[in-house]
């Protein structure tokens, strides 16, 4: 039988992440940027599930996440971290993807609670998505139902050290493998699923186009793409009834 020590608790990426620039000044500058990024993380204030109940204790007086430089932020465009706190129902998953695509790079996703790994205790449920990393690249999982604030903070520190060492590059995979992620999303939301953000153009802009960015699913996206217009908001069914 394997020793407990042999059980890998964390997947170590094999290839050396990030390329080092040869110019020593540029290298120092890169290191400085990474350090600053890892020390000022703004996490999006979006409670997607029940794990969010352990975030207030982690953020407030007792465990005080702010001493590590982690603060809640209300708008996705200024946030660095997207916390998925618990199970994601399909309705929420759509909003999560919209939110994730609006966030500025570099951006990181943390999956909290067992439900984000494999459906957790709602594995039978028709309404929740099961494996979160099929739809978004996830940087760190924090298992537990629900993880204690200490576990949340330790997961955050894990992410911080990843950012500092340049290993946390998962956001690039969304652009590089957009076809794969879009395919999973289409499978769940229907073929005509589209988001207001133009990921392909962004991938081109960042220079992250690979042969896996485009594929059959993005072709489907172009086929079904409607011109985007301001969302039509129907307030009430009552108006319908009046007529």
């Amino acid at each position: 039988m394997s020793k407990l020590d042999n059980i890998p608790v964390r997947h170590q990426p094999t290839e050396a992440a990030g390329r080092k620039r040869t110019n020593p000044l540029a290298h120092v500058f890169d290191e400085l940027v990474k350090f600053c990024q890892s020390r000022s993380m703004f996490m999006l204030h979006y409670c997607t599930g029940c794990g969010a109940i352990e975030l207030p204790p982690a953020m407030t007086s007792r465990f005080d996440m702010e001493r590590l430089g982690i603060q809640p932020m209300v708008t996705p465009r200024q946030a660095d971290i997207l916390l998925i706190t618990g199970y994601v129902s399909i309705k929420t998953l759509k909003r999560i993807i919209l939110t994730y695509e609006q966030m500025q790079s570099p951006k990181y996703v943390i999956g909290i609670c067992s439900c984000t790994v494999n459906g957790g205790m709602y594995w039978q449920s028709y309404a929740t998505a099961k494996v979160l990393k099929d739809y978004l690249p996830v940087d760190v999982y924090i298992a537990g139902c629900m993880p204690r604030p200490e576990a949340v903070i330790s997961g955050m520190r894990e992410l911080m050290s990843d950012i500092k060492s340049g290993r946390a590059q998962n956001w690039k995979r969304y652009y590089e493998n957009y076809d794969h992620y879009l395919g999973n999303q289409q499978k769940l939301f229907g073929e005509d699923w589209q988001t207001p953000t133009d990921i392909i153009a962004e991938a081109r802009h960042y220079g992250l186009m690979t042969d896996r960015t485009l594929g059959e699913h993005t072709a489907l996206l172009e086929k079904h793409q409607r011109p985007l217009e301001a969302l039509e908001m129907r307030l009430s069914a009552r108006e319908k009834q009046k007529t």
Partner: protein
Amino acid sequence: MRPENYQARSQPPSNEFELNFGPNHPGIEGNYAFRVKLNGDQVLEARADAGYLHRGFEKLMEGRLWIQNIALVPRICVPDPVPMEVCYSLAIEEIGGLEVPERAKWIRVMQLEMSRLAAHLFAFGGHAATTGMYTTMFWGVADRDLILDRFEELTGGRVYSIYNIPGGVRRDVPEGFLDRLSSLLDYLESRLPDYDNLFFTNQVFVKRARGVGAMTQEQALKWGVTGPNLRATGLEFDVRRDDPYLVYDQLDFEIPTESGGDALARNLVRRAELKQSIRILRQVIERLPSIEGPIRCPIPNPLAWNVPAGEAYTRVESSKGELAYYVVSTGGDKPYRVHVRGPSSMHAVQVLEKLALGARLEDIAQIMFSLDACPPEVDR
């Protein structure tokens, strides 16, 4: 990046506009949304949009054993999970004709009141944060954490305890627990004047919350409001006293009421209930050591337990209002149907839609937090 084919839609000039409020919004409790129609910043119409937390509990419970569902039910309301377990257990005990030992009843009451304390501290902490008073939130959440420590000692779980099972509770009170609980209560009681100074009598809060989301007693009864929100309109009603379960009829406590019916009154009721919960807990601490006996009645092998056919409707008073379970058994090892009536299914949907009319946009968050609406109870 805006796509090339984006076309702005021209709108007729108007003061009215519509806004998606939530689900990703700090003024919303949990994952919930509103669509509001505004004139300036005045709300003309609001529509709740739920379902972001839908997991299909009622369906899941039909597919699992009676005892497995104990692990599911507390997830229906995250800030106040204990009443869920107790209410579900009460329903099974009523169907199965189980006699719960006296000691288990007292332990359950103790947990329920601890959970109520924790939920109230969380609730007004949240309300304070929406009015910009973050200190109260920090204090409230930190004090709630001390209660969670006692939960952890008693049950092994911080938030979800999964400690009440049909027939009683899982294990007995640890040695010295009651002393530690007692000193925690002393501490909490000494904090109450601080909270008064900081929040409940603070003019910043009082002026902001007075008159916001006000309803009369008639309206409250018509809309199905329950719990602290109903008591804030002046009706002295509490399921614990008027439809007693467990040992609440042997306990001595008052039912605080207020007459305003607005956000301020609802918070003052919660403030007064903190005191009553501490009072109940002190009585439990006094009585519990003298009650000897088992902590659960014998139940059949829970993995092959066929609860006899029947149905039961049980109600408990959770920190948010009247919580009820309707459980139907056909004599199988799984429930045939479980219906959960969460108090917030009224508060967060119809009541909020009505109270929001004419309010200002920034007050929607206040109304929602003062009603202590809990979206997972709506979605289930």
